[in-house]
């Protein structure tokens, strides 16, 4: 950085230096004269230097240098020099900020990281030109710097200049003056004769068009912002509970966006055409009782809600070439619409788009939340970054202070523990308890999965239960209760564990809950695709699976409502009235987010069999938002455990992508490629697998003619060829490995730079100590000189006294 190092040294100004511009080739001269200075001074301070080093060694006894003495007792001159060190002035002085931003602007313009040779000042070899400058940046120096900065700003583009100005940590008045000064004068462009008239006409027309377009754009933008709901509610939640609880609600908003996207595609390409061309119903429509909302069967069965309703023919077929089952009612000017192909490809494309969006947002969130070396320095990060300025209520602010204090104490205790190693016995005991608790939790998950399996087999076997509709609700109810109860059990077991790191506790709890849910969902998937397909041969098994998923979704919502009611409201009343505790129940973020992920997995599993399921999920999410918000504001308090909000958001998005979406995609692929669709209903009733619809169409295209022959070719060589899949996977792995190596290299560079900085720091301390000793010696000389003059003044009086006496 080209910042002048200001020194006061007793060097008389040689008149020859002022006129001449010293170039770097004169460095040897400069260097020699500074050498001479050092020699002069060091001859006088040789003795003191030795004393200094001895004293230092006695005091510190370590190999590292320390500052000679605390700053309070250093001389004023040294303090003034220290106060004007560049590393300190950048934090407070305007001139330093201006020169720093001048350097940045220069780098931006010239795109080089080395400053020009002409401006270069070696920090170890100050040039003689600077000897007459005073210590603090004076007004004259600041004006110089300001004019330099203004010149640089003038040569930037306007947008860049404004961007630069916006990012400067100066006050608004100063920024405005800089902008005024750096505005490029346009005066010489005014009053151009001749073409002025035509230009102004075109200019005004263009101006008017741009104005109109701009206003339209603003209207659209404000409409979009009005559509973004809940801004005030989220602000209130953030103000009262902080960023951690807010992350749950933001995650809910993300899920809403995903579902809306899915629903849009499905409505546009599957439901819309089917509603426009309704097929003939198999029999009279059943009467609607209220139970449909819970079971999804009954009068919902033969509607666009389920797979079975969709026709397997080409809609809107021209009457000339009828296929079996199609109605001969073409609309005027309509296109034929191949329903099976549309169904398959819409579901496939919507999953693909969801996958891309998920992976992109996960990578984006990861990029924002991961920093190389972020695991070290936890004390500094906690103290500097943990205060949440969004919190506006006094009670919440006090709670935040309590949390931070607890966190700091925990960190200190952890640090103590790490630095006083535990005995082998203690560590063995800790490992044993940990292993036992993990075993119990895994056993619980396995037990739940087995219970679900047994119960579902029982439901298949018992014939009397099949007839009643209400009996269909039993399996979802059992699964929902297991999902609710088992995490509580795991939390009780986790209380037995030794708490080493609070953040790790949260991760472990999430992991266990996730394993439980995956086990249950896996069992259910086997039950549906493996057993139910076999049992329901001859009937519409896809409809049944779709209805099951609807029931699961609805039951999940009902149990969530009950859990909120009893877990939060009733618990708060009990703890306030009976137990007389002041603390409200905590809002368990991890458990709630995992429930959201579970619901979304059910939706994704069911999209193939029930295209309207995302709409149900959207309604459910909206209701969940309002219920949770109300309950939160009335009954809960923020969690005491530390919560790294951006880190956790990345973790949740990753969990949404990898076990949840991937599992649903595997389920979908298996259903499309391996399972035989039922022969009585749905768009694939005549085919062996659902994927055949694509193959049939490709064969149809091949027969159609040479113009579209590239499509079957693409299908044969890319879609069905496994080599292409291997190639893509290999490329992906290579990219991942390269990125890992890059991160590793960055870590090494950071280590080296840190070492270099600490070496420079030792240099600095050495110089400060030397400086201090020089000033101390000067002061002592001053004092002794003053003392001798006083003595010289005093003795004549004594002599006269003695003479008198």
């Amino acid at each position, binding site marked *: 950085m080209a910042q002048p190092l200001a020194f006061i040294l007793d060097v008389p100004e040689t008149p020859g230096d002022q006129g001449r511009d010293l170039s770097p080739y004169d460095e040897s001269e400069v260097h020699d004269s500074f050498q001479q200075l050092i020699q002069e001074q060091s001859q006088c301070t040789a003795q003191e230097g030795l004393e200094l080093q001895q004293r230092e060694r006695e005091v510190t006894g370590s190999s590292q240098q320390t500052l000679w003495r605390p700053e309070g007792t250093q001389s004023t001159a040294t303090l003034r020099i220290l106060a004007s060190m560049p590393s300190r002035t950048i934090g407070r002085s305007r001139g330093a900020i201006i020169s720093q931003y001048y350097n940045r602007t220069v780098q931006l313009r010239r795109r080089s990281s080395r400053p020009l040779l002409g401006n270069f000042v070696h920090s170890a070899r100050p040039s003689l030109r600077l000897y007459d400058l005073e210590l603090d940046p004076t007004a004259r120096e600041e004006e110089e710097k300001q004019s330099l900065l203004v010149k640089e700003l003038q040569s930037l583009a306007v947008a860049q200049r404004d961007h630069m100005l916006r990012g400067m940590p100066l006050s608004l008045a100063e920024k405005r003056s800089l902008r005024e000064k750096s505005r490029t004068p346009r005066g010489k462009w005014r009053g151009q004769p001749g073409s002025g008239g035509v230009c102004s006409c075109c*200019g005004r027309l263009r101006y008017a068009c741009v104005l109109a377009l701009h206003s339209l754009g*603003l209207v659209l933008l404000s409409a979009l912002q009005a559509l973004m709901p809940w801004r005030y509610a989220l602000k209130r939640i953030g103000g009262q509970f902080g960023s951690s609880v807010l992350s749950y609600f933001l995650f809910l908003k993300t899920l809403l966006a995903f579902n809306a996207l899915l629903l849009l595609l499905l409505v546009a390409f599957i439901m819309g055409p089917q509603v426009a061309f309704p097929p003939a119903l198999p029999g009279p429509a059943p009467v609607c009782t209220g139970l449909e909302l819970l079971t999804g069967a009954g009068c919902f069965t033969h509607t666009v809600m389920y797979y079975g309703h969709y026709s397997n023919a080409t809609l809107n077929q021209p009457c000339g070439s009828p296929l079996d089952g199609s109605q001969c009612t073409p609309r005027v000017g309509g296109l034929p619409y191949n329903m099976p192909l549309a169904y398959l490809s819409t579901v496939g494309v919507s999953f693909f788009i969801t996958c891309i969006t998920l992976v992109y947002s996960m990578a984006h969130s990861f990029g924002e939340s991961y920093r190389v070396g972020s695991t070290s320095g936890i004390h500094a990060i906690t103290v*500097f970054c943990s205060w949440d*300025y969004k919190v506006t209520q006094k009670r919440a602010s006090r709670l935040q202070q309590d949390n*931070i*204090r607890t966190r700091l104490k925990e960190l200190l205790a952890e640090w103590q523990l790490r630095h006083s190693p535990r005995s082998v016995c203690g560590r063995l005991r800790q490992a044993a308890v940990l292993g036992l608790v993990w075993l119990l939790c895994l056993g619980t998950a396995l037990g739940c999965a087995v219970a679900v399996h047994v119960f579902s087999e029982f439901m298949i076997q018992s014939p009397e239960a099949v007839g009643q509709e209400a009996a269909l609700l039993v399996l979802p109810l059992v699964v929902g209760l297991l999902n609710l109860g088992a995490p509580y059990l795991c939390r009780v077991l986790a209380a037995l564990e030794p708490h080493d790191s609070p953040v790790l506790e949260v991760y472990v709890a999430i992991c266990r809950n996730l394993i439980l849910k995956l086990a249950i969902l896996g069992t259910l998937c086997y039950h549906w695709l493996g057993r139910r397909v076999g049992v329901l041969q001859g009937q519409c098994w896809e409809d049944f699976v779709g209805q099951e998923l609807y029931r699961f979704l609805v039951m999940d919502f009902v149990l969530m409502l009950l859990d909120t009611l009893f877990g939060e409201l009733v618990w708060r009343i009990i703890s306030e009235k009976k137990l007389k505790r002041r603390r409200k129940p905590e809002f368990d973020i991890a458990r709630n987010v995992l429930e959201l992920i579970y619901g979304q997995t059910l939706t994704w599993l069911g999209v193939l069999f029930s295209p309207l399921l995302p709409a149900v999920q959207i309604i459910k999410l909206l209701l969940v938002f309002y219920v949770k918000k109300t309950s939160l504001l009335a009954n809960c308090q923020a969690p005491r455990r530390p919560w790294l909000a951006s880190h956790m958001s990345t973790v949740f998005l990753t969990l949404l992508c990898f076990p949840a979406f991937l599992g649903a995609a595997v389920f979908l692929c298996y259903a499309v490629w391996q399972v035989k669709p039922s022969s009585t209903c749905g768009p694939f009733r005549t085919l062996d697998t659902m994927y055949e619809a694509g193959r049939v169409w490709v064969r149809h295209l091949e027969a159609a003619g040479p113009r579209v022959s590239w499509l079957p070719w693409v299908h044969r060589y890319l879609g069905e060829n496994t080599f292409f899949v291997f190639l893509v996977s290999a490329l992906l792995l290579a990219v991942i490995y390269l990125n890992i190596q890059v991160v590793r290299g960055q870590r090494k560079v950071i280590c080296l730079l840190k070492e270099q900085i600490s070496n420079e720091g030792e240099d*600095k301390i050495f110089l400060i100590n030397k400086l201090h000793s020089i000033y101390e010696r000067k002061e002592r000389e001053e004092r002794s000189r003053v003392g001798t003059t006083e003595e010289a003044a005093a003795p004549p009086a004594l002599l006269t006294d003695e003479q008198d006496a």
Partner: protein
Amino acid sequence: MGGSGSRLSKELLAEYQDLTFLTKQEILLREVLDNETGSERFGDCLRQHSEAHRRFCELLPQEQRSVESSLRAQVPFEQILSLPELKANPFKERICRVFSTSPAKDSLSFEDFLDLLSVFSDTATPDIKSHYAFRIFDFDDDGTLNREDLSRLVNCLTGEGEDTRLSASEMKQLIDNILEESDIDRDGTINLSEFQHVISRSPDFASSFKIVL
């Protein structure tokens, strides 16, 4: 211009929007046209800037609420500290002192208020946020964070009461750990670059260093 409306002139509004972070998301496209009448800037920053102006005017006495005098008025600290967004913040006095440009450092003008909101807004760069955070934490304004600054900072974070402070040994241990982790050049204090290095390792800082009107 009289009346109690909070309409700032278009030129002034455009200037504020260029120099602060307050309105980036409100603007769709920004076109600068220099024609014979002078440069004009378009923008719809009315919502955020007029919100700021409205809240500022609420703190002024009635006779100073016109547009002209509100831009020149200086609001003393007690009034600013009564804003609900700042009331519960333990750093409120430091924030006011850092942003104040009055010579006695005891009042804020409208432009200082805009500066404050701009730095604490959603779109301000982490660079400028960390710069001002450093100045807020530098209680003695000497350009570095020494042990005294750090202990005052920790006391603000944990609460000022006797029973809420950390004990002396805990405080010493904590400050030693902080210096160990962040003082790279080992001079016993944390300067701006070291502070910004620590901040850059925490991705949560930008979202927590935010005040929303």
